[in-house]
C-alpha cells in the first residue's frame, strides 16, 4: 500500500524527472556520437569536467547561463580530443574514450584544487531556481511534477525535440545516420566522413558537458569529488536501451530516474529490514534487466567502432 502511495505521489515523479535530467543530456550526447559511428566513453569524465567548469565559472562571478555555455565548450573540447584520436587517426575508440575520461576527471580535480587551494568545505553558488509558471504550476499533480523543475530540465526536454528533428528531418541528420551505417555511402556522395564524425562527437560531447553542469548548477549548488558517480556509464547503457532514438532516450532516462527515486523512498518504508546498499543497487539491477529485455533486438549502427580511411575499402 505504501509502495502504491509512493508511485502516485507528485513528489516522487518530480524527483524522477530531476534525476533523469543529466541522463537525458548524456544519452542524447552519446546517441549523436554513436549514430555517427563513434563510441564516446569519455562521457564519464566529460560529465565531471562540465560539472566543474560550469560551477567554477559561476563561482568566479559569471551568470548561470554563461556557466552552462562554458560547460558545453569544455565538453566539446574533450570531445575534440576523442574525435581527433579516433576519427582521422583511427585509434581504438574504447582506449581513447577511457583515456579521455581519466584525463578529464583528473584535470577537473586538479583545476578545482588549484583554483581553491584553501577551502575545506565546498563553496556554494546560487543555483538555477524552479520556474514558476502562473496557472500551470497550480494544476494538481502535473503542476508540481512538471512545473517545479529548473530551466535546465526544460532545456533537456527541448534538446530531445531538437535532436529528433535534426536526425530525421534535416539533410545533416540524413548524412549523420548514413555515416554511422556505411561511411562509404557518404564519401561516394562527395561529403567528408571525417568532418561529419568529428562534428558529431564534438556536438555530442557538448551535450554531455551540459549534463554535468546540471549536477552542480541545478541539482546541487557545489562541486564534490566523485559526484558524477557512474552516471556517464549509465548513459552508455541507456543509449542501447533507447535503440539510438531520441524519444526512447527520454523514456529510458525517466525510467532510470524513477527507479532511483523509488529506491530512496523504499528505504524509508522498509528501511531497517535490509542494508541500504541493496536499495542503492536496485536502479542498476533494474536497468540491467531492462537492457537485457530490449538489447536483443538492438539495431546497432553498423559502422559503430569502425574507423574509416579515405580510399581504403
Amino acid at each position: 500500500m505504501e509502495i502504491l502511495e509512493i508511485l502516485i505521489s507528485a513528489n516522487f515523479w518530480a524527483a524522477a524527472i530531476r534525476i533523469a535530467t543529466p541522463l537525458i543530456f548524456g544519452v542524447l550526447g552519446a546517441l549523436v556520437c554513436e549514430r555517427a559511428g563513434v563510441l564516446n566513453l569519455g562521457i564519464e569524465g566529460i560529465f565531471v569536467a562540465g560539472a566543474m567548469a560550469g560551477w567554477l565559472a559561476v563561482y568566479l562571478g559569471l551568470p548561470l547561463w554563461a556557466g552552462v555555455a562554458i560547460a558545453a565548450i569544455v565538453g566539446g573540447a574533450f570531445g575534440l580530443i576523442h574525435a581527433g584520436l579516433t576519427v582521422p587517426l583511427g585509434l581504438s575508440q574504447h582506449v581513447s574514450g577511457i583515456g579521455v575520461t581519466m584525463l578529464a576527471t583528473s584535470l577537473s580535480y586538479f583545476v578545482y584544487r588549484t583554483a581553491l587551494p584553501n577551502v575545506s568545505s565546498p563553496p556554494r553558488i546560487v543555483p538555477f531556481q524552479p520556474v514558476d509558471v502562473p496557472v500551470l504550476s497550480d494544476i494538481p499533480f502535473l503542476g508540481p511534477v512538471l512545473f517545479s523543475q529548473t530551466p535546465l530540465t526544460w532545456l533537456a526536454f527541448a534538446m530531445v525535440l531538437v535532436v529528433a528533428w535534426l536526425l530525421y528531418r534535416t539533410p545533416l541528420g540524413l548524412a549523420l545516420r548514413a555515416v554511422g551505417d556505411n561511411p562509404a555511402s557518404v564519401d561516394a556522395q562527395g561529403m567528408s566522413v571525417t568532418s561529419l564524425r568529428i562534428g558529431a562527437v564534438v556536438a555530442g560531447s557538448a551535450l554531455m558537458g551540459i549534463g554535468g553542469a546540471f549536477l552542480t548548477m541545478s541539482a546541487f549548488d557545489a562541486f564534490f569529488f566523485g559526484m558524477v558517480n557512474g552516471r556517464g556509464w549509465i548513459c552508455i547503457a541507456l543509449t542501447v536501451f533507447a535503440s539510438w532514438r531520441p524519444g526512447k532516450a527520454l523514456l529510458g532516462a525517466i525510467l532510470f530516474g524513477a527507479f532511483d527515486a523509488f529506491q530512496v523512498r523504499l528505504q524509508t518504508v522498509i528501511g531497517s529490514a535490509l542494508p541500504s546498499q541493496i536499495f542503492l543497487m536496485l536502479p542498476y539491477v533494474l536497468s540491467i534487466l531492462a537492457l537485457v529485455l530490449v538489447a536483443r533486438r538492438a539495431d546497432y549502427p553498423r559502422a559503430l567502432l569502425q574507423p574509416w580511411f579515405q580510399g581504403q575499402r
Partner: protein
Amino acid sequence: MTHGTAAEPAAGEAVLSLRGITKRFGSLVANEAVDLDVRRGEVVALLGENGAGKTTLMNILFGHYVADEGDVLVAGEGGDLQELDAGSPRAALAAGIGMVHQHFTLAENLSGFENIILGTQGLLDLSVSRRGARRKLEALMREAGLDVALDRQVSRLSVGEKQRIEILKALYRDARILVMDEPTAVLTPQEVERLFETLRRLTSGGLSVIFIAHKLSEVLAIADRIVVLRGGRKVGETARSVADRRLIAEMMVGRHVPTTRREPGRRGGVLLELRDVSSGEPSDRGALTEVSLAVAAGEIIGIAGVSGNGQSRLSALVAGLARPRGGVLRLFGSEVSHHDPRRFAAAGVARIPEDRHHDGIIGGMTVAENVVVEEIRAKDYSRWGFLRKKAIRSRAEAAIRGYDVRCQGPDAPARQLSGGNMQKLILARVLDRAPRLVLANQPTRGLDVGAQSEVHRRLLEARARGAGVLLISEDLDELLSLSDRVAVMHGGRLSEAIETERVGRTTLGLMMAGHGREEAA
C-alpha cells in the same frame, strides 16, 4: 541522359580522356601510362584480371586516389575537355561522373530514396526537400525503365534492386559518364539481361558507360569497345565487332591458359547423404528447408545459386559447424550424432571455406602453423602437449613446394599472402591428407585465371582419386565445366541434381531466380 544545355557534345565526341595515368603504391605500380578515351553514348569495357589496375584507374577518375602522373580531362558544358580537380570525389560528381562500386555504397538503415538524395542538398538546410526530388526521380525512372521501391529500407532490398538504386543515385546527379565496377558479379543471368537493357536505353540517351569486368563473355554482350589492362598497363584495345575471344583472353593473362577438361569418372558409393534436412530458424534468410542431396565417391556435385540462398548454411552443415533441425545427415555411411568440425575433419571432410580471409586462414599465425592447424592434435605434430616444430616445418615446406604457395617461407605471417596463394595454402592443408569428401564453397571467387585453373585441376584430381566433391559456386561456367551433376539452391530449398550434359545456362538462371525446373525448361 541528356539534361538541359543545347551545347552537349555530339555523339562520337570524347566526353572523357585519361592521359598517361601512372599510379604507384610504394614499389607496386598499379597503373602505368594508361590512356583511355570515352565517347558520348558508348559502352567501354575495361577488362583485366584481378590486380590489373582497373579499379585503381577508376578510383583515380572518381577522386579517391590522386595519380602520380597524367591528366584526367572531362567534357565541360561547351563540350571541350577540361582538367578535373584531382583527389576530389565532389569535383568528379560535379563534372558528371557517377560510380557504381562493386561493394555498394548504400546506408542500409535508410530508404533508397534517402540514399539517393543524401548529400545533394546543403548540409545546414533546415529541412529535407522531398517533393521536388521525388518528381525528378520518378521522371528518371520512367525514362530509364528502372523500377524500384524507393521508400523501402535498403537492407530489405535484393542485390539487383540495390544496384538500381546505385544507378539512380548517379543519374539523379546528372551523371553523363557512369562507371560500373564488376556490376554483374552478384546478379542472376536474368538480372544481368535486365541491367544490360537499362544500359542500352541509357546510352541511346547519350550516357557513356565504363564497364569494369574480368569475364570476357559478359562484356561481349554489352560493350562497344573493349580495353584490356594487364599489370597496370593497357595491353590492347578492340571494337567488339572484331573482337577475337581467344586473343583477348591471352592478352588479359599474358600467356596461354590451359582449359580444364573433365574426364568421364567412375561413380562409387554414396559418401554424404542429406534427407529432408532443415536447419536454421525458418524465418532467417539462408535457412534450409527439407534439403535432400547425395554425393558419391568419384563425382563432383555442383550447387548453383545466388549467394544468400542457403549455401552458407549447407556448407556449415557439411563441415560440422551447424546442426540440422530436422531430417537425416549421413556421412560415410553412418548417421551423424556429434556435429563437431574436428570430428568431421578427422573423418575425412576437407573444407575449403567461402571467405578465405575470415574463415580460411589465421592471418596473425605463420604459414606453417596455418598448414597444420586442423591436425594440430595429431601425434605427428604434437606430443605431450608440445608442438613438434621440426615436423610441422617440414610438412609446411612440402606444402609450399607441392602447391606452389608463393611466400617468404614457412615462418611468414599468413596475412601477407595474396588471395590466390592463400587458397593454395588451404588446398595444401586439406587435400594433402587425401580426404574422402571435399567441400569447396566458392573456391575461385576473386582469384585470377591462373589460380582458378590450379584450383580446378586440384578438385578434378581429388575426384579422379575417388573423393566426392561438393562444389558450391556462383560461377556458372565453373559449375558447368567441373560438375557431373548440378543442383540449384533458391530460398533455402535445393532442386534435384541434374546431369550437367542435360542442363543449359538459361535453365539454371531461371531456377536460380526461383522458377521450378519444369517452368524453366
